[in-house]
């Protein structure tokens, strides 16, 4: 059973609320202060991705965030209601920690400066950028089918006396 569960309407304004709740629960669970910013950013990325997917496919469905501390690790699961076939998320994969795109020069993020200026610039970078950020922040990231949707699980493992 999760320590805390939150469901919210898929609107951008609620992503901040989800971040605040995640940070508060992480702090309460004993996650080190130095990791709280990572939890906040990773949860925000996962929720932003879910909000955009819901707005495209199922704006009436809520997004679920569950936060669990089992003493060994702090786990956050963000579950959307977008069917895998409508998603561009690679369900069923595990992203090893540290797989962010840090070694690149932006090209891997779809940053093509040869684009003509008149071309529309998307508000968000490609979706895998958010996943790369999450993978660069959490100790373990798993993407899986969950009922009629997809879940992104982020884990921060306990380190010595604290997380």
């Amino acid at each position: 059973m999760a320590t805390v569960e939150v469901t919210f309407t898929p609107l951008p304004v609620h992503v901040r609320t989800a971040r605040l709740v995640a940070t508060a629960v992480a702090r309460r669970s004993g996650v080190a202060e130095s990791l709280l910013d990572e939890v906040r950013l990773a949860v925000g990325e996962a929720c932003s991705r879910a909000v955009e997917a819901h707005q495209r496919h199922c704006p009436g469905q809520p997004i679920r965030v569950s936060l669990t501390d089992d003493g060994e690790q702090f786990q956050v699961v963000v579950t959307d209601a977008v069917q895998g076939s409508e998603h561009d998320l690679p369900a069923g994969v595990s992203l090893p920690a540290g797989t962010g795109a840090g070694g690149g020069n932006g090209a891997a993020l779809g940053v093509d400066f040869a684009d003509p200026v008149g071309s529309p610039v998307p508000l968000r970078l490609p979706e895998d950028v958010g996943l790369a950020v999450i993978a660069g922040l959490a100790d373990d990231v798993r993407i899986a089918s969950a009922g009629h949707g997809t879940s992104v699980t982020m884990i921060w493992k306990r380190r010595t006396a604290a997380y």
Partner: protein
Amino acid sequence: MDLKLSNSNKDGIEIVDVEGEIDVYTAPRLRELLIELVNKKNYQLVVNMEKVEFLDSTGLGVLVGGLKRVRAHDGSLDLVCTQERILKIFRITGLTKVFGIHESVDQAIAARKAEKRLPA
């Protein structure tokens, strides 16, 4: 904290001061400001992020979009940021190699002027 934006001109370079959180909710406002400045032919931009408390990939997308627009006019978009928690997302995404990131507005302006003086 919500997002506060202001801009001013210094030595011919437009300085955009950003305060608060840049995320999927607030980023469109920053995007609109950057587009407005470019439409008014301001192609040398410095975005001061010293008071930014949170930045996610949506915010990065807006900054990359701004950079693309000014570069199309041989312009520049430099950043001012010394906060480790903000710099981290630039490192994770490799965007430290795309943006000029400086420790102060004066340093960013000086770097831009020095680049302009370089022979072609």
